[in-house]
């Protein structure tokens, strides 16, 4: 039986960071609005997810996901999965109602729109965390790498369509990609976890192993990165 994920709250510190707050906390009024927006969003967020675990093999043209048509291309994903015999591929979404509430607020209340957008981004990461936990439970004895997103580094965004088909994601959780490989509904994520029975050294994401190292907005001002 699949486990149903329910979000009871959203990581508001994370959302505040997306809104640009780093060393300061949002003021009282903004905090109040963030709380209102959180309550409104939680009413429409319906977390859905799908994942599958496959054996993988490293070939010249990329990492083959065995038993499927999926090939993971690019140096960065190859490095990321090195030492792994299996990989979990997953897709999560907050569902389409979130898109609608964002659209409505963009028309009549931009403040709430940007706050909800940031909250939704934080929420989708939380759902990913939950799915990671579920995967851990289902494959005991394995440790896993951090989540490597489709389109991250040189892992081509054009993998999106076949990635979704492999998970049967359009049918199972209603996630599709546009011609430009953008996921719809918008607050959705596709990513890969490397799994290994041996110890791995890339279980946590850090500035050093990030493809945006030295380029990202968070580190431009010389301070430490995004905090992930």
């Amino acid at each position, binding site marked *: *039986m*699949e486990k149903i994920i329910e979000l009871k709250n959203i990581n508001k510190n994370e959302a505040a960071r997306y*809104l*640009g*707050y780093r060393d*300061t906390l*949002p*003021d009282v*009024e*903004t905090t109040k*609005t963030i709380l209102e927006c959180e309550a409104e969003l939680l009413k429409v967020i*319906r977390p*859905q997810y*799908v*994942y*599958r*675990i496959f054996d993988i093999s490293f070939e010249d043209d990329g990492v083959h996901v065995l*038993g*499927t*048509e*999926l090939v993971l291309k690019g140096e960065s994903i190859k490095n990321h999965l090195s030492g792994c015999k299996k990989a979990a591929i997953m897709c999560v979404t907050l*569902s*389409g*109602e979130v*898109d*609608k509430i*964002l*659209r*409505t607020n*963009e*028309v*009549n*209340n*931009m*403040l709430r*729109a*940007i*706050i909800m*957008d940031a909250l939704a981004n934080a929420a989708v990461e939380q759902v990913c965390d939950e799915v990671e936990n579920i995967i851990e439970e*289902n*494959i005991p004895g394995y440790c896993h790498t951090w989540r490597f997103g489709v389109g991250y580094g040189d892992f081509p*965004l*054009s993998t999106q369509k*076949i990635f979704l*088909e*492999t998970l049967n994601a*359009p*049918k199972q*959780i*209603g996630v*599709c*990609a*546009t*011609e*430009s*490989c*953008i996921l*719809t*509904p*918008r607050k959705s994520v596709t990513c890969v976890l490397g799994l290994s029975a041996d110890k791995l050294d890339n279980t946590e994401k850090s500035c050093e192993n990030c493809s945006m190292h030295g380029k990202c907005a968070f580190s431009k001002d010389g301070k430490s990165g995004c905090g992930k």
Partner: protein
Amino acid sequence: MRFNELLETKEFVILDGGMGTMLQKNGLKIGGVPEVLNITRPELLTSIHREYIDAGADIIYINTFGANSYKMKETGYSVNELVQAAVKNAKAATAGTQTLIALDIGPIGQLLEPTGTLSFESAYDIFKEIVIAGKDADLVVFETMTDLLEIKAAVLAAKENTDLPIMCTMTFERNMRTFTGCGVSNMALTLEGLGADAIGVNCSLGPDELMPVVEEMLRWTNLPVIVKPNAGLPDPVTNEYDILPEEFSKYMLQMADMGVKIFGGCCGTTPDYIRTLKKALEGKKYKGVRKQIPAAVCSSSETVEINQPRIIGERINPTGKKKFKEALIKHDMDYILNQAIEQTHAGAEILDVNVGLPEIDEKSMMVDSVKAIQGITEAPLQLDSTIPEVLEAALRVYCGKPIVNSVNGEDKSLDTILPLVKKYGASVVGLTLDKDGIPKDGDKRFEIAKKILNRALEYGISRENVYIDCLTLTASAEQDGVVETLKAVKRVKDELGLKTVLGVSNISFGLPNRERVNHTFLALALENGLDLPIINPNISSMSGTVRAFRLLKGYDKNSREYIEAYNIEQAGNEKQTDKQAGNSGNITLEYAIDNGLKNDGARITKEMLKTMDSMEIVNEHLIPSLDKAGDLFEKGKIFLPQLILSAEVAQAAFGVIKDYISSKSQDSVSKGIIVIATVKGDIHDIGKNIVKVLLENYGYTVIDLGKDVDYQAVVDAVKEHDAKLVGLSALMTTTLVSMEKTIELIHENNLDCKIMVGGAVLTPDYAKQIHADFYAKDAKESVDIAKQVLG
């Protein structure tokens, strides 16, 4: 045998089971394209079909679920080849049997606008190609659909290009909705209206969990109902399903008792399931009964049952509204959307949409408005135009079951409008007037209502879908007419049993204190049987009268809705008054902008206009305050939410100034025109929308083309508005190409305008490389650029 004969002669119709399940057992890789096997392994398909026929299937689905041009693009085969091969394989299997062949069509695999980028029109074309390729099948089935608009495009494509009978099944989750939020009643009302031959559910859940969905569906349709569940739920690791054939059949038998006619299996089911099912149903009798379907209209996610007075909001209509007319001419969709949001918040349950203006192309405006309004509100719409072509265009793209406003008692009107109402499965407002105008006598209006009803019935429109408008006359001019209208409403309601609709506000034209007359007349009309008052819900005495009426008549059980509406309103009012009282000292516009006080900003601006020139307010107060906020934002002293809040106060202040200027007919305050767009293929437009808010508050006129904008549309807008600055945004590496192409096209057309670009993945270097004139790192910088270019 034909599909309708099958329905008539058999107690129950048996469909086949899973196809993907069978193909994967036979070596199809996960993520592989099943349709290619139609050509590479025809014998496999024929043998699977045979297994299902042997198991007892009356109808088999051919292997064309994903055979659309989008999904098949990289297979090297055409849609036509793959579909015809599938038909051929199936015919080889059915030869010598009575089994029918269903052309099986699933979702395209891309979401439609506004969540995705696929337009309704493109979806229609994609389905059209498949149904034409598969016209040799015995029927067509659209299955596993989750978007009501997508399946509507599919049904229209089948109806307009083939004679095939149509079965439709959608996929519901435990919350009784599809992934896109479509409800069961919404599906049933819409698809029965469009002329589907059978409707139902498939996939997603096992038969036990589908029970409540099926029960709800049976309440909302008289069509044969289809159930094609999964074999329970898949295990996420092994992908095995958890319900065996016997248990599967047990639940299906319960559904036969509920009134289901057509049975089959979806993912995880095999010929064993079908065989067991067939056996279990033997000797059972079909329990379908004809029932009265509730009078109702719907969008994709909201069904409004007309079982008590329902408010139709009248505000989306340019008649007598200068600002609305300007918005239509400027194609300012946000203005219209705000009218929609305001009315639904005030209590409107259905929205009338009229965008007729001689200066504009009403048809395209109507289509754009219907699409945009449905993107942000759940309220069903009443499509309002005097031009049949406009109504038909709106009816096509409308998602759900709308009301058509209107037809009248003239033959020409009846014979033009009613066929459209029938074809698209809408409800219709019938005005009780004819070539001689509005009869003074209420009884004569009743006669016209009867004529409209009879003609509607002749066209196959059922009586619960005919709403009669007995027409409100102006009390000051025709005082005796008031009781005639009320009398006609009562007779139509009592004697014809039809729902009634009435535009209310006209009653008080030419009188002082109109509001008082309006809501008193509204109460009278409601008591005489008015179901659908068309009113301005933003006037609280109007929506309040309807709410109070529903309470007093016992529709609003335990006064729940009434209390909900006014408890919140009162609390909100108190809060606002407090806030204003606390700040009502000598605060300035600058203070209001710094502190995000929207109401104060507007109020102070009104005060200032009494003694100050409007441009002075803009240049000496508004813009310096915004500059200050922008400066603080740049320095990291304030953050995006505060910047936006300041901008919203400025927007409120600007609104006051614009109203003032338009009332004085002075020149506009625009500092120049800027065209902005999120480029083709990209749908991340929040950044662009933030830029828009800021630019507008600096007094620039912003022509917002939206997201996923064609290259040519940008060029056209620059030409049309003679814009000197264009802002383009893109958020994905995959859409930067579109940005480059848009810029190329602007340059090819030798347009005298500067181009600024922005977006997360963009860098100043890349901006230069694609020949943009400016790179804006954030919304604040776009304002600096605008100042530099336009002053």
